[in-house]
């Protein structure tokens, strides 16, 4: 009797969990479905839930018209800014952890830079970039995303570097390695997992950023997020393009979740939970 009761409870729990997962997945499924529907299916009434075929013409249109370059622009800006933010942020974190540079106040000042709503500094940044003539260039967006992500990287890497035992560094120093060599050959290899997890999130933030991309791009270096919103016209909405372009932006993220699930908790909680 009791056993039967237990099995019944497990079944109920599983049913609720699966239902919740379906609720969270469905909008993404719907987006993916729109991207491969034929035009007739997109504008069918009542809506078609399962596409009849695999119509990739929306994607072909994006590549033929050159809109797909936006994905490349996103990739370059997010990729390069991730590398730079990781480099500068990690060095800063190491300085803070090992030498207590600036005490607690400096670390708090750095993280507070991330709390300011982007819109507040958007216009001054825009003016600055106009005077430097880097609006609508890779340089501008990369510089901005690097600055935007340095506080996050510093904060996260501070947590990871604190966990590395000091004795290892000391013995390496005694062995005659220079401070730079200790950092590159001892510390960073040991923080590999942390570096990797932090880089993944730094990339996601830059990849998904919209407000600055909207302000600082025009026609040359337009990222995919700006492109997607551009398809919502005042006269007509380009459903198939929205679907296809969004999917090009979403697919890498699905890959990230699929392969790096175990890093994710700590990354999104800014280290609040040791994952």
């Amino acid at each position, binding site marked *: 009797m009791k056993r039967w009761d237990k099995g019944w409870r*497990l079944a109920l729990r599983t049913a609720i969990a699966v239902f919740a997962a379906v609720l969270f997945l469905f*909008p993404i499924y*719907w987006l993916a479905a729109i991207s491969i529907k034929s035009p007739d299916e997109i504008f069918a009434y009542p809506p078609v839930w399962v596409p009849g075929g695999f119509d990739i013409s929306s994607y072909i249109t994006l590549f033929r018209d050159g809109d797909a370059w936006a994905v490349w622009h996103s990739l370059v800006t997010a990729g390069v800014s991730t590398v730079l933010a990781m*480099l500068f942020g990690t060095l*800063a974190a190491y300085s803070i952890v090992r030498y207590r540079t600036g005490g607690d106040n400096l670390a708090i000042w750095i993280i507070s830079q991330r709390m300011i*709503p982007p819109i507040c500094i*958007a216009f001054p940044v825009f003016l600055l970039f106009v005077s430097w003539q880097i609006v609508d260039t890779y340089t501008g967006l990369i510089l901005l995303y690097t600055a935007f992500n340095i506080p996050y990287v510093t904060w996260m890497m501070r947590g990871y570097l604190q966990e590395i035992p000091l004795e290892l560094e000391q013995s390496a120093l005694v062995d005659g390695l220079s*401070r730079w060599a200790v950092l590159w050959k001892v510390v960073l290899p040991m923080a590999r997992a942390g570096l990797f997890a932090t880089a993944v999130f730094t990339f996601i933030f830059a990849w998904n950023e919209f407000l600055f991309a909207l302000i600082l791009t025009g026609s040359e270096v337009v990222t995919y997020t700006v492109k997607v919103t551009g398809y919502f016209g005042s006269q007509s909405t380009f459903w198939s393009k929205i679907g296809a372009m969004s999917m090009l932006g979403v697919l890498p993220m699905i890959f990230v979740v699929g392969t790096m*699930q175990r890093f994710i908790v700590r990354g999104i909680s800014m280290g609040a939970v040791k994952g």
Partner: protein
Amino acid sequence: MAQAPVRSGIADNELAFKYLLIAPAIFILLLIGLYPFVKLIVVSFQNISMFDDIRSFQGFIHYERLFEDVRLWESLLHTALFTLVALPIELVLGYLLALLFLQKLPFKQILVAVILLPIVIAPIVAGSTWRLMLDQRFGPINQVIGWFAGGDVKLLWTVDPLLVWPAIMIAEVWQWTPFMFLILLAALSNVDQEQLEAAEMDGASRWMTFRKIILPAIAPVMFIAVLIRALDLFRLFDVIWTMTQGGPGTRTETISIYAYQMAFREFEISYSAAIAFLVIFVLTVVVVLALRRVEVAR
């Protein structure tokens, strides 16, 4: 701390090294963080707009205007109300989901992976997706409601003044409940099992167990999660931009949307600088108060 320096030569070396490491980060942050901030303050005391370009000191005219600007205070109210409604919903739903997933479940890894997908998707894409989902004619939401209502339903989710906020709320809760879920799941798995068992043996009620054991254990993590989400909601822009652009009228205008419109659509440069300064000021006060309360509570 590194080993104690033996000779002063090494100490100098170390000093140079530690500042060298941190210099690039500080330089970039000052450039993109501090310079705009100073510029903001300067511009807010000048008078620059589409029609004026007065660079001399103008006193507090823009700050006085803040107090009379009904649209501004409405947008702040929208932002605050939305945060106060969305955040508890996400917290409670996330907690319930976490409780569910704390127990034994088949395919747990896969289900968790599916649920956390919304977090890594661009808010702009989430907004677009929900706009398509909520489309009055070609979206599945009205269709499903129609099944229950028994007839065609044509709800104008992104246009009808009564429905726009619920529509944005749905998108927001969909995207960020997984965030609360994930963090609370991790926090709950760290709760001391022995304490829970001891409480059960002593016959403590569920509510008492929650208040005396679970809540204190997850409170620090929960606080950070709420803080991160509150800061995000305070700057809410992307989802609204794709779903309504602040409309109809100014019905769904948040402070970020309003500040954007003022700076980049109406070119009220000096006034928008005053708005930005107000926002930073309010935010700093709120965050400092929140942090202090937590420290007092500890």
